[in-house]
């Protein structure tokens, strides 16, 4: 009898204790498309946060990148979305904010750590409200296999001609596929192709803003020239590139079968884990030696709050922490290649990531041409650019025709281009 009472008491206190704990503890769920980063969030970022705020539990629940917008929108409509929403830059998130799905974070403590450019991806067109904390940008360029370059005896190309000479040398050598990229998934051709080499031709921000203002057209030389470059890529992409998927390209490169990989800096952490040769990176080659170089330094990830969250205070605490330099440091070093956007000083340890970020010093930065404003209508310029880049690489469409088609599509709904 005595024993029973004791057990009962113990049981009761445990229950009480447990319910008391849950009453205090808030649980936050993060929606994201970065399923590659699951381990880093679980092992590094979340433990660091929970150590400081033991009352808040955080769960990271990513979905597949291409379906993220669709999944997120349906979840938000159904009221089942997480508390914290990872934001894509520009229109997708702006639409969510305008629909009242994302909370206004303009007054968030720590927002002052970011420049206006950093915030532009997640602010209203007039800049009056910011609804996501800028997390990271990605830089485009080319990652190459240093061993292969030594073996074939070629130097890192600076100009367009040198670039094609290097590709030609690898083609002749025959031991390596000159460049690892496929057109099966379509987006690589635009993201790692057109928007990677393009800024050199349309002069970065100058061309991009002129296009938005309607002062330049997609049929202008600056916008057609990158297609002309892409048209020459087809011959260097390896057999059957038409059916080669994005993961195929990653594998081909990290297995050491290809010499050059048209990249975004987000590949760095994945490649570090897989490749057993030394990698280097070079920025998109310019037309003539000595030209100003331009890079795509694209504001890529932000993070905001579901306006309908049940834990607004905990979510605000979390977002304030994300805006801090502590988070920037952990994030930048656990995910080399996602460069922090905050003004805080961050020391990068990864050599490849250092290489990429060093271009910010010597080249002019811009963001991807199709992301701001220009993909708001139907047809969607970004998706059309995927299609056109693939068609040009395969030789199914001439660079001029591609420019003409994109311009026609844009003019259909975008007043300044009509």
């Amino acid at each position, binding site marked *: 009898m005595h024993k029973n009472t004791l057990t009962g008491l113990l049981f009761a206190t445990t229950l009480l204790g447990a319910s008391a704990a849950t009453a205090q503890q808030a649980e936050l769920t993060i929606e994201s498309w970065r399923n590659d980063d699951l381990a880093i969030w679980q092992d590094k970022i979340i433990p660091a946060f929970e150590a400081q705020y033991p009352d808040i539990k955080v769960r990271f629940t990513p979905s597949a990148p*291409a379906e993220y*917008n*669709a999944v997120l929108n349906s979840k938000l409509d159904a009221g089942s979305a997480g508390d914290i929403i990872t934001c894509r830059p520009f229109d*997708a998130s702006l639409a969510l904010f305008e629909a009242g799905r994302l909370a206004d974070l303009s007054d968030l403590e720590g927002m002052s750590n970011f420049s206006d450019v950093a915030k532009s991806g997640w602010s209203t067109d007039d800049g009056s409200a910011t609804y996501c904390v800028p997390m990271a940008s990605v830089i485009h360029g080319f990652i190459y296999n240093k061993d292969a370059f030594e073996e074939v005896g070629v130097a890192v190309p600076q100009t367009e001609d040198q670039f094609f000479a290097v590709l030609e040398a690898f083609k002749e050598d025959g031991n390596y596929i000159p460049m690892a990229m496929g*057109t099966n998934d*379509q987006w690589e051709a635009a993201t790692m192709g057109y928007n990677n080499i393009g800024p050199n031709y349309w002069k970065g921000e100058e061309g991009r803003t002129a296009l938005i203002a309607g002062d330049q057209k997609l049929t202008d030389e600056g916008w057609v020239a990158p297609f002309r470059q892409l048209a020459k890529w087809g011959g260097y992409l390896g057999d059957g590139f038409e*059916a080669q998927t994005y993961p*195929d390209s990653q594998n081909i490169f990290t297995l050491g079968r290809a010499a050059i990989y048209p990249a975004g800096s987000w590949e760095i952490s994945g490649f570090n884990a897989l490749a057993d040769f030394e990698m280097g990176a070079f920025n998109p080659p310019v037309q003539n030696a000595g030209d100003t170089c331009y890079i795509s330094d694209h504001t890529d990830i932000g993070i905001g709050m579901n306006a309908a969250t049940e834990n607004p205070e905990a979510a605000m605490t979390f977002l304030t922490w994300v805006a801090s330099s502590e988070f920037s440091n952990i994030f930048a070093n656990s995910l080399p290649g996602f460069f922090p956007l905050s003004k805080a000083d961050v020391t990068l340890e990864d050599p490849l990531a250092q290489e990429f970020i060093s271009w910010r010093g010597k080249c002019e930065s811009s963001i991807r041409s199709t992301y701001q404003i220009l993909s708001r209508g139907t047809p969607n310029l970004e998706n059309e650019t995927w*299609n056109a880049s693939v068609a040009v690489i395969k030789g199914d469409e001439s660079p001029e025709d591609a420019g003409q088609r994109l311009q026609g*599509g844009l003019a259909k709904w975008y007043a300044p281009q009509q």
Partner: protein
Amino acid sequence: MPAPSKPKTRWHIAVFLAPAVLVYTAVMIYPLFNTLRLALYSEVDQQRIWVGLQNFQTLFGDAIWSEQFWNALGNNAWFFLIHMLVQNPIGVALAALLSSPRLRFSAFYRSAIFIPTILSFVIVGFAWKLILSPIWGIAPGMLDAIGLKFLYQPWLGKEEYALTTLSLVSVWQYVGIPMMLIYAALLSIPDEILEAGECDGITGMSAFWKIKLPLILPSIGIISVLTFVANFNAFDLIYAAQGALAGPDFSTDILGTFMYRTFFGFQLQLGDPHMGSAIASAMFGIILIGVCIYLFGIQRRLRNYQF
């Protein structure tokens, strides 16, 4: 003589039907009508407004939409045609072979051919994507081994082959179904009829053409209409193998993937439930017309042939 009793209310019929009717209404009939309704609205500045048939006008009249729509419909038609020309004749032939009493191990063949049907389309899509991959696939190596490497193409990556390749993959997966249905129909043909035919000197192949085939025509009709409905509703295999963009260059885009992209959005393109519903309604209409043609045009004639 007992007085004619008042007809009893047979309430048990309603009770037994109720669960099925309720579930069916909730998950099929209501969503169907709601989709049709949704297609008549549009969203402007976060407000849902009534636009009547304007979404359909856009879908069929605006070049950007209609091009995609006709492309998808054409691809659907080709997808269906390949199934009719390849899957169903092969299914009939296999069933005829299997029903032959002289064939040994017929149960084994039957199972082996039927197994792909029970596989998940995701497995089938990914498996074939791997088999046909120019980089890791076994197809180039196998062709090389018999000296036919020159025939190899990245089939899933070329506009001119991708849809046909996927149609044939789908044929491979589903050929077991017509085979089983026809097999069952063949087994149900009474022996007396065949024996009577034998007395008249109709044996072997001519017995198949002259006796069995006419008797299984209704089954073939049902299979055709099932194929039609399944093919025009198809989505899964294309999505698993080529993604929602149905590449290369929309050459494998069918109404299902077109509807998915429009309804839910894809990458930067935001979802538009109203245009998506318009496409879904168009799909519903096409299937309805096809099935009606079958029911009133073909099945009636088939029935007239029967005794």
